């Protein structure tokens, strides 16, 4: 039986645990990260183990990633989500030249070389307006779920400009436009368009023009993807059936596999409290 490896991505919005063996996904689980990253990483991993009818001791090696990568009680090696996302994207789409990772905490554009090696990357500057939070926050303030928020953007024929300088100021602008009786759908599309423009600006800094894969929670938003495609012309999602939020976790599991192959002794002493 092939050895099993775990990739655990503890992001600001959600924690993703995946189990892989022989480069195949066995199971995965995604939960909100909440405020206790150690607990969310344990719960996500336990759920993934339950789904595959396996136990912690069956894991030959693991890598943690994401902002909470050091805040886990599993003594796995930590690798940044930038390196892991590149590895995961390259595994799923061999021709990928770049990733746009739209997360809750930041947006990354990563240029990828052979074998999923990171050639260069840029992240949004210090502002929530460049991240998935921008959309999440405005949708929440309007009392709309993210799915409806995205659908209304896709369906809108108009696009009203919204400033993307600051999330809080953008919220104020949205409220001001609503109070003037302007089209809500047009405003919502403007919100998606503002974030897409910022992401496109980042991608331009790396002069990326082709074979771009979108991942992260933002890639689940059809409204944002439509606006991004309008700007870039060529941006795809991971293959059908793969949740775009899973790319860093997949990359983490693959890196765990590679490191185990190089040094099985060092990378097989996985433990966590009580196990």
């Amino acid at each position, binding site marked *: 039986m092939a050895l099993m490896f775990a990739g655990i991505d503890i992001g600001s919005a959600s924690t993703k645990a995946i189990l892989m063996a022989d480069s195949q996904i066995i199971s995965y689980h995604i939960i909100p990260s909440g405020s206790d990253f150690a607990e969310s990483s344990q719960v996500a991993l336990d759920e993934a183990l339950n789904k595959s009818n396996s136990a912690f001791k069956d894991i030959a090696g693991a890598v943690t990633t994401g*902002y909470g990568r*050091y805040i886990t009680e599993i003594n796995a090696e*930590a*690798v*940044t*989500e*930038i*390196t892991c996302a590149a590895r995961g994207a390259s595994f799923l789409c061999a021709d990928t030249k770049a990733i746009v990772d739209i997360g809750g905490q*930041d947006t990354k554009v990563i240029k990828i070389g052979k074998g999923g*090696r*990171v*050639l*260069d*990357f*840029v*992240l949004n*500057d*210090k502002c929530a307006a460049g991240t998935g939070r921008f959309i999440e926050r405005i949708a929440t303030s309007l009392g709309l779920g993210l799915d409806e928020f995205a659908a209304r953007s896709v369906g809108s024929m108009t696009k009203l400009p919204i400033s993307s300088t600051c999330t809080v100021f953008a919220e104020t602008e949205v409220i001001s436009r609503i109070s003037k009786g302007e089209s809500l759908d047009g405003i919502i599309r403007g919100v998606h368009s503002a974030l897409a423009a910022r992401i496109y600006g980042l991608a331009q*800094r790396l002069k990326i023009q082709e074979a771009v894969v979108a991942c992260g929670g933002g890639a689940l938003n059809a409204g944002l993807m439509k606006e991004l495609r309008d700007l870039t012309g060529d941006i795809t999602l991971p293959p059908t059936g793969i949740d775009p939020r899973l790319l860093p976790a997949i990359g983490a599991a693959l890196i765990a596999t590679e490191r185990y192959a190089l040094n099985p002794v060092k990378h097989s002493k996985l433990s966590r409290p009580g196990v």
Partner: protein
Amino acid sequence: MVEKKKRERPAFNRSIAAAISKHYKDVQTNKPMAYLLMASNPLVEIAYAARIQPAFPENYACACAAGHASAGYCETAEAYNYSPDICSYCRNHLGYIYGPGENPPTGGIGEPDLLLITSSACTHYFKWWDALHEIYGKPLIFINTPRVMEPQSKPDFYMDYAMREIEQAIGEIEKAVGVKITNDKLSEAVKLSGEVVDYWQKLLEMQKAVPCPMDYSDLSNALFVLIVLAGTQEGVDLMRETYNETKQRVNEGKGILSKDEERHRLLWINIPFWYKLGIFGYFEDRGCVFPLSDYTHHIWGTTRMDGSKPIESLARKALEGELNTSVDDQIDKLLKDAKEYHIDGVIAHSNRSCRVLSVGMLDAVDIIREELNIPALVLDCDHTDERVYSDAEIMNRIDAFLEMLA
């Protein structure tokens, strides 16, 4: 997790620390005292020739940042209507003046008797010195210099103009403090300044050695000698000591890291985060050194000073400083040096406070990245205002950059 190592620092750091400590006692007690800015400033040598104690509010901001007092001072300045968009060196100083607190870092910087300023650095500073003039009501003496786009081909009338400005400033300083600045005194200060610069240039050249003999913090310490003590025998002695020890380290093959440990030689663009100098140790623990930075190599200490031609030397110092030249010139120097220092990665600080160093920086990064085919990381932050720094964000980017280098 990578182990954090305790490394033996070169001994000259202790001598420089003692000089810094003495300087901050001197600025409290010596009179007359003048506020000066640091970059390419010909007024430092003139101050020493006139027996005026110079004090440097920018350097004080660095000390406050290192002591984690800057954020509070910046907040105080903002409460006095100084916008957060103003340079944090300036806000730190004005905040200190308005509310120094019970235990200001280094004991404080003292009140000036004179305010000396030149246009050869940051244009922002005129208004800072204007504010100081308003607060203290002391004489404000200003040297204006033309902007030099191509340092190698500056027109003669630029030199004539800068020399006249310097001569005029000398007259005003003499009048303000009632001391005659003789040619002998000025020549001596310029000669001593020249000796400091000569040692500094040789010190920088030695950073090309593998392994790199000094780290960024060591070089930043030595900058204090280059700038604050330019024109003094104390400065010459300290810079000679720094040079001699570094030369010995190079001869013995001694580096901050051993030859085997030194895996990457990085270029740091812009001013460091003064409240987080430990970041360089983080890089060292991961096999990276910083033999080159525009901040240490290009902004100051680039003009050869000739004691027999004091006014001409001071004029050239004012005109040739990097902050007084074009972005193209800055990029050319960085590219040339990146090759000579065997740089294989770039960390660029997009410094919210220092626009004069940040404009053109992304172009410089792109050009170096493309011409040398090396990776680069841009960090958005601030040199003094610690509130802008986000540890999780910055360290995550640095970790990813290090993984990319590996």
